[in-house]
């Protein structure tokens, strides 16, 4: 008793100072949560909430969020990818259940109209009144529309929200010509969108060059040239004075120099203005040209109101990029909750982008305004490349750079500048093409651990090192655990270098050798086999390997030989290389029996054939199941039964389904336009055609495809290596999806293709994969590890950047032309048939294969069930 009382007494004594401490910090007890209102549900407002959850303090807050837009936060940086599917899924930032599971209240489609700082209440458009203790102002910015006469006409737009894109898409249906006013970064992105909407596109720029803020004159010229090559007309030094009725098109634009341009659609992209009207009305401190003034903790002039993102003015600057906004969000969370000490102390505005497929990068002092700085420029008119670096007077430090047409050096140049690293003597070498093929740039080892490699996601070199220490060993893993390289992608090359360097250092030898017998990668071996026309493992081993080979290099070689020459799996020189699944042309099950999976292209099957499957299964007493790939699997066949089973199936018109091979599995399909009321194309016919085309192709790992007849996507094409979705105008092709262990949604690769182009692209895509992937690397991982990723792949497959297209197509058609059903050929050869017996010297069966019955079918008996049977 006494002890307990003492404990209570001590407890109260301790509790008093604790409580006082809490009050000093303005915190409240658990019961009374701090009322936090977040105004604006854009990317930065949302990232604030993510950081709040990460801080572990969100339970102490009663959070109410207002967003004027009808949808919860989406990734505005990737707004343009909305055009892909016209669906918000691709850019949605909010993971399922994020708001409810954290008890955050979200009012989408409701705008905050007033902040009453005396009553400490905000009012919304819908009439809600919410009292607050703290406010986060994340209202972002709006496009600036200069008050040119006619700016308020119909068919004049801005480019900022999903609704804007919806309106532009609708207007583009009836228009032919589009003009973007503003040749900055966003203007060019808008121009790309207009071009993709099949409009004849013009870019009107007031300044003498494009992207005047970020790049210099020489760079601007090269950029104009490249963009004009793409079919966009660029008009610089044009001051729009009036927009009126057109004669051949909806509008006529008149410029100060007397010229005119007729266009159906106009998109203004002439800069942004912070959305500071609420703050202004509430009397917060403002900049002379707008923006809510904040300090390093992101506090405004009111200690209970923070401002973050594009509405915030720090050191008289508005930051129109996402990375600084995220840094502000983190600083605000740290200050609000006291869980961290990060501050916003300005941000580097260097950028690298791909505009209309053109690499553009700008770093630091791109205009060489630093007194006495020196510049080095490299211009290549043939390749249309422009590069400039700006360095300090003594050649020691990088101050800025502009890269157009090829921005490969962006990552290392940026690191030189940010970390004030000393440049090599003759710094021009950094941008000159190296004639001996060796790459210039920096040893990433020299980078300090604090170096920020990925500015979008604020990932430092130390973060990457930690991830490697925790077991991440490829780019895919780095992306998923650090988020590095998942924003603009500009840092991919650099992050990959750091990854490899760390792996090497930590003794995880980045040994890309296939196995101890070959000091080559799978890709090397592929090239050797192709170039030297090698036809057997012995030949390869003798000339390029050592030892006897193993269960890694033998099947890999067999697989490459098949991709190249497509001889039968049981060809004498190949059969000893095949893994048991390929040797017995069935998947070995846990008890040593095999499965039988005949091909059912597209999942379409006649009742007659279905009956055959049933009859065969019944006759040989096989366990029967519908697979996840729209066909039927018969399990429990003993090796010696396989030839008889297959003879019956082949006689009934079936072919092998290659369920065992590293090869095409199925082309899943929906029923499509022939039956479905929504179908817009005949997905069934296409899937059968594709399955018949690619069946039997041996590849680094298995291949899966699907075709859906409309965007409802019943065939789940976006989870396949190649997925196809019908559109009104043809087919959209998606690549590098994966189900399985680490699901990945496929990326849109090309739109509205006709059948011929579609097949051409798939041919090239698969053959490029066959050439370059690692052993057992699915297309998803292959692309995630590829420098340049999707864009690079497009450049190789669609634009034929490597000049390989014709070769790839030819190689594919060689495979297609030499297709044979492996089972059919096998049962026709008595020599081969002999090898299926379990014993070499007896016709008996393996008595260890014991089945029991469950739900009216066989299954392998468990050990316990076996003993009871023998007992």
């Amino acid at each position: 008793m006494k002890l307990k009382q003492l404990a209570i007494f001590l407890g109260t004594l301790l509790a008093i100072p604790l409580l006082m401490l809490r009050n000093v910090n303005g915190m409240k007890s658990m019961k009374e949560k701090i009322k936090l209102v977040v105004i604006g549900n854009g990317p930065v407002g949302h990232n604030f909430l993510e950081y709040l959850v990460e801080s572990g303090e969100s339970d102490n807050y009663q959070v109410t969020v207002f967003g004027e837009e009808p949808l919860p936060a989406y990734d505005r940086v990737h707004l343009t990818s909305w055009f892909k599917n016209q669906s918000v899924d691709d850019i949605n930032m909010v993971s399922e259940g994020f708001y409810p599971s954290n008890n955050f209240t979200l009012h989408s489609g409701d705008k905050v109209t007033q902040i009453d700082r005396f009553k400490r209440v905000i009012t919304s458009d819908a009439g809600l009144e919410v009292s607050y203790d703290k406010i986060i102002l994340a209202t972002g910015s709006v496009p600036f529309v200069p008050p040119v006469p006619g700016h308020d006409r119909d068919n004049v737009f801005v480019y900022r929200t999903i609704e804007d894109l919806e309106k532009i898409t609708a207007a583009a249906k009836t228009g032919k010509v589009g003009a973007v006013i503003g040749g900055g970064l966003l203007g060019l992105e808008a121009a790309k969108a207009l071009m993709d909407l099949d409009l004849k596109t013009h870019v009107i720029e007031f300044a003498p060059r494009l992207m005047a803020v970020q790049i210099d004159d020489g760079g601007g010229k090269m950029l104009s040239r490249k963009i004009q090559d793409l079919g966009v007309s660029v008009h610089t030094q044009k001051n729009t004075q009036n927009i009126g009725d057109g004669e051949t098109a909806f509008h006529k634009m008149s410029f100060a120099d007397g010229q005119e341009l007729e266009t159906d659609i106009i998109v203004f992209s002439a800069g942004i203005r912070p959305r500071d009207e609420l703050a202004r009305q509430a009397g917060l401190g403002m900049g002379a040209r707008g923006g809510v003034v904040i300090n390093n903790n992101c506090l405004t002039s009111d200690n209970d109101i923070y401002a973050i993102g594009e509405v915030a003015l720090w050191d008289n600057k508005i930051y129109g990029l996402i990375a600084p906004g995220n840094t502000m969000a983190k600083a605000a969370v740290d200050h609000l909750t006291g869980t961290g000490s990060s501050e916003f102390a300005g941000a580097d505005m260097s950028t690298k982008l791909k505009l209309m497929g053109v690499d553009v990068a700008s770093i630091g002092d791109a205009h060489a305004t630093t007194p006495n700085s020196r510049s080095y420029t490299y211009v290549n008119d043939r390749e249309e490349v422009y590069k400039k670096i700006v360095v300090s007077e003594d050649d020691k430090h990088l101050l800025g750079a502009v890269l157009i047409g090829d921005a490969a050096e962006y990552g290392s140049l940026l690191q030189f500048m940010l970390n004030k690293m000393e440049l090599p003597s003759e710094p021009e070498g950094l941008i000159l093409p190296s004639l001996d093929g060796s790459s210039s740039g920096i040893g990433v080892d020299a980078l300090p651990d604090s170096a920020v490699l990925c500015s979008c996601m604020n990932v430092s070199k130390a973060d990457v090192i930690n991830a490697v220490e925790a077991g991440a060993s490829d780019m895919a893993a780095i992306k998923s655990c650090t988020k590095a390289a998942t924003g603009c992608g500009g840092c991919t090359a650099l992050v990959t270098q750091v990854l490899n360097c760390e792996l090497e250092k930590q003794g995880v030898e980045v040994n890309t050798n296939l196995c101890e017998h070959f000091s080559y990668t799978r890709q090397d071996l592929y090239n050797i086999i192709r170039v030297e026309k090698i036809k057997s493992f012995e030949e390869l081993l003798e000339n390029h390997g050592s030892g006897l080979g193993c269960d890694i290099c033998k099947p890999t070689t067999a697989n490459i030989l098949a991709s190249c020459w497509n001889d039968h799996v049981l060809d004498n020189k190949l059969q000893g290389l095949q893994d048991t699944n390929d040797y017995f042309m069935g998947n070995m099950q846990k008890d040593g029996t095999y499965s039988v999976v005949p091909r059912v292209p597209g999942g379409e099957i006649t009742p007659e054939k279905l009956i055959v499957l049933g009859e065969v299964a019944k006759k040989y007493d096989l366990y029967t199941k519908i697979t996840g790939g729209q066909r039927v699997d018969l399990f429990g066949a003993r090796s010696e039964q396989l030839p008889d089973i297959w003879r019956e199936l082949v006689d009934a018109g079936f072919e092998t389904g290659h369920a065992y091979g590293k090869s095409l599995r199925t082309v899943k399909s929906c029923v499509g336009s022939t039956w479905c009321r929504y179908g817009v194309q005949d997905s069934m016919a296409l899937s059968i055609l594709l399955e018949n085309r690619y069946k039997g192709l041996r590849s680094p790992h298995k291949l899966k495809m699907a075709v859906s007849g409309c965007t409802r996507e019943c065939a789940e094409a976006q989870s396949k290596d190649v997925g196809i979705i019908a559109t009104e105008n043809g087919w959209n092709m998606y690549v590098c999806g994966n189900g399985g262990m680490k699901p990945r949604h496929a990326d849109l690769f090309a739109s509205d293709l006709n059948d011929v182009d579609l097949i051409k692209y798939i041919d090239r895509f698969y053959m490029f994969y066959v050439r370059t992937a690692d052993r057992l690397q699915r297309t998803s991982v292959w692309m995630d590890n590829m420098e340049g990723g999707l864009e690079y792949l497009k450049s190789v497959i669609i634009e034929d950047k490597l000049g390989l297209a014709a070769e790839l197509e030819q190689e594919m058609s060689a495979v297609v032309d030499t297709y044979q059903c492996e089972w059919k050929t096998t049962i026709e050869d008595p020599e081969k048939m002999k090898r299926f017996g379990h014993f070499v010297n007896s016709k008996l069966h393996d008595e260890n294969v014991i089945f029991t019955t469950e739900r009216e079918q066989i299954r392998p008996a468990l050990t316990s069930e076996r003993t009871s049977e023998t007992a």
Partner: protein
Amino acid sequence: MTTAHQQWFDICNIDDILPSMGRCALFNELQVAIFRVIDQSGQEKFYAIDNFCPFSQSNTLSRGLTGSITDKIVVASPIYKQHFELSTGLCLEDDSVSVKTYPVRLNGCTIQLAA
């Protein structure tokens, strides 16, 4: 090991087992996996071990791929891919596991096992 007192039994013809592959023989009611391998010096060698794979509890070792790991001649279990040294039956991945080995030889064109 081969000793003078061993009695040899004919199992099959050499052509019944393809180079670098294995087959299973029924021998004294036992399942024996026989392998035909050309070793590093170019010599043809025969090995015999249990067909029973202790990891998967199935009679499958004869259907594994042969090869070499460092200087050891091995077979890889076709189910979970553990390696067994053919001359000793030792498992490379787990030294507490091994399979039995049997005397085997080529006599003319006939492959023989001894009890």
